[in-house]
């Protein structure tokens, strides 16, 4: 995989492998500031091998400060999932990489739902029609008592 283009913003370190790629979903890692570095280290090889555009808080202080923002609070690592990639499957792979490592983080992220794996740190949000379908599935599952 070719190296991604790195950009720094006030909050983020952004790594873009494929600029201009569409966005079908986002996978979030809800890592606490103290586990940011360790958590990112665990999933970085996976992201690099798949060439997935992503961003992570540039340091624990930035992550702490971003907690004041209602939309971005707790979102330590954000992975952009392009169309054609199964966000659910990737979320479970990420979850498996983070499981049983003693990592902790917030249990709720705005606009995203937990994947519910072993780590409890991975959340998904879908965009576009897929998101509506996902919501419908969730409502149906709730009605059926699943």
């Amino acid at each position: 995989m070719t190296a991604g283009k790195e950009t720094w913003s006030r909050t983020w370190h952004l790594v873009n492998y494929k600029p201009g790629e569409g966005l079908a979903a986002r996978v979030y890692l809800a890592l606490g500031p103290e586990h940011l570095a360790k958590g990112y280290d665990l999933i970085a090889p996976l992201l690099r091998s798949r060439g997935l555009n992503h961003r992570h808080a540039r340091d624990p202080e930035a992550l702490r400060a971003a907690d004041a923002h209602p939309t971005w609070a707790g979102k330590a690592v954000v992975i952009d999932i392009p169309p054609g990639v199964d966000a659910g499957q990737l979320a479970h792979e990420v979850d498996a990489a983070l499981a049983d490592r003693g990592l902790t983080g917030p249990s709720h992220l705005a606009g995203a739902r937990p994947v519910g794996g072993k780590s409890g740190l991975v959340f998904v949000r879908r965009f576009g029609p897929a998101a509506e379908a996902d919501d419908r599935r969730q409502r149906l599952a709730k009605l059926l008592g699943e």
Partner: protein
Amino acid sequence: MAIMALACTGDPLLDLLLAECCSFSLRQTSCETLAEALQEVEEQKPTLFFISPALCENRPVLNLKGVRVCYLLEGAAPDELDADVLAAERITPELVDAWVRCPARPAQGSTTSARPQTLPPSPRSAQIPPPPPLRPTGEPASPQGAPLTPPAQPRTQPMPASRPLAARANASRSRPEPIRPALSVLRQQVVTFWGGKPGAGRSTLAVALSDLLSRAGGIRVCTVDLNPWNSSLAALVGKEQEVPSWFHLSEALARGGSFPPDSLRWVKPNWAILSGPDGRPDWVQHLTSQAIIWLVDGLRTQFDYIILDPEARPGEVRETAARLAQTLLLTLAPDYPDVLDTTRSFEAGLEQGIIDRGRCRLVLNRWLETPHLPSTDVADCFGIPVSLTIPAAPDLVVGATSQGVPVTQLDSQAGRSLVQALGGLAGLVAEPLIGAAPERGGLLKGLFGR
């Protein structure tokens, strides 16, 4: 009516910073992506729309019609971005407010297509590295700190002094309204002088400080004469023959226009001054608190350091300058009444909340240590340490000022100790800059250790 703004920068800390700005009313959004941002713009129809590189694939937004889009960029310079770019090493609410108060760029297709004036490659910007990634990712380093594109003729060329004033003024009026350049400010800071009686050396020190900063490489400096009656700055840099800046400034203020770049008098390509009204009643009446804020806002978009030289007299000019400044240089001469008066006005300023000790640096100018007025006692009066002592050298200073050159450019053997002492001025307002070049022994050694 308040300007309505929408922020969807994709960067939470920038969004939070925008909430601190006072020139517009910010509508909070919960959008994370470009598609969501466009939907918000469609629904809310804001006047201003803030984005940043953290909102990936944001280029389609830059051409939105009916909304002024501001692209906030920290660190690296924009690469041929056809948008209003607010680029700074560190964006602050003041900088954003200044940008908002400036008129927008003309619409695309306009005949004026001046590209932003940017700085030459700055060794300092390269010295400020981006923070390292949490762990090495095996990927190339970020391009942050990349050199900016080369410039750089002064925005206004001085006109021949032989032309009559009215002709020169008409010539400047007939020029097309210059468009606001995209911002590219590295270290935006306002510095003001405070206290002392007339003749304590504030203007001389303002010129010396500006000269030092302008020689530090890649820094743009503007020195502003805020003395309504005894405006001496132009004479100190040999610009007294040029049209006073207040000719243009008072006209722009009277018609409620934007800051006129024609009012800048360029000493060097990266150092300009704004000369004072020099006692002309019709110009002096415009030198108000609002005018100073308007002036500084106009300059913020073009200069890294703005050095204000207000009058010594207490009043709205001095107070406004003190409120705007990040650093205040308390300048005193070895004169008991001067110390007493300045202490009183300093304490009054503290009580009124105009100044605070954290922003103040005590500078003893033309100092002659006497048993009756030791510098330690002076420091006790103000409750802050003496940051700099500049020895008295009246002959040298008079010699330099009469030639219209900054005292920091004295190259005689006799002037060496004075120049050495003055070198400390830059350190008072640009500490990070000094520390940025330890291998050269800092800026001071680089400039004066020869």
